[in-house]
């Protein structure tokens, strides 16, 4: 059961990822990325990370991708014109390289003896593993400092984005 779900979601993720990087129209890329994010969220659920799955959908797919779509619409880009030969060549090269390296990685992974694999079927996590409460407690106890710093970071990012994108940035006086 799990394996089936994993296979479907994994395939979907990979396919949409490939679509993201290969579409000519940026809007199509953005939408493919959304699909990819959804499938990854599904994978999170499989991995007992419920809180995180919800966050992924809310923040990533909901906010970040909306921002991307917004910018694409704002800049009103037309689809890229591509050089067919170049693209094919690049695709071939990168595809081959990826496959080659993946094979290597897989072999390495498989080489680990079954005994050392932490993926023992009997490894069942606690019932509230990955729940809002557990993760929340971690955030506010062990990881309180990074949590606060991230909020500072977000503030900086907001200010920075506003300043950089302002129309009157480069004119005299602020």
């Amino acid at each position, binding site marked *: 059961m799990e*394996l089936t779900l994993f296979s479907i979601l*994994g395939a979907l*993720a*990979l396919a949409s*990822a*490939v679509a*993201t*990087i290969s579409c000519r129209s940026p809007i199509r*890329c953005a939408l493919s*990325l959304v699909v*990819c*994010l959804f499938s*990854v969220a599904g*994978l*999170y659920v499989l*991995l*007992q*990370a419920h*809180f*995180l799955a919800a966050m*992924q959908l809310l*923040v*990533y797919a909901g*906010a*970040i991708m909306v921002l*991307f779509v917004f*910018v694409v619409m*704002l*800049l009103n*880009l037309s689809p*890229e014109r591509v050089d067919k030969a170049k693209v094919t060549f*690049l695709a071939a090269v*990168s595809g081959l390289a990826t496959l080659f*390296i*993946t094979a290597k*990685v897989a072999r390495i*992974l*498989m080489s*680990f003896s079954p005994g050392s*694999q*932490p*993926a023992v079927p009997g*490894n069942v*996590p606690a019932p509230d*593993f*990955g729940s809002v409460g557990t*993760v929340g407690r*971690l*955030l506010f106890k062990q*990881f309180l400092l990074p949590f606060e710093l*991230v909020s500072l*970071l*977000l503030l900086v*990012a907001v200010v*920075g*984005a506003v300043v*950089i*994108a302002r*129309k009157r*940035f480069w004119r005299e006086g602020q």
Partner: protein
Amino acid sequence: MLTLGLYHYVLLSFLLLAIGLVGVMVRRNAIVMLMSVELMLNAANLAFVAYARYRGDEAGQVMAFFVMALAAAEAAVGLAIVIAVFRHLRTLAVDRMTQLKG
């Protein structure tokens, strides 16, 4: 192989990373490059969460949480820069942005 294990997730994460990396290297469009970067970040997140599950430690999920926050900040600032550059150069092709060449 037939039982779902940690390393399946790790391999998937690696593939997503590779795809994202190829996307960054190959695409000319700056926005699509940023999207590929998001893809890579997601791949990293997936790895974190997988390890968290299989080690029984939610710290991995916390890490993924932080990465998400960072990705948000980075996307915001990156897109702001893209907009600013677009205003100047009227194009988003990164191979036109070579003023720093040496």
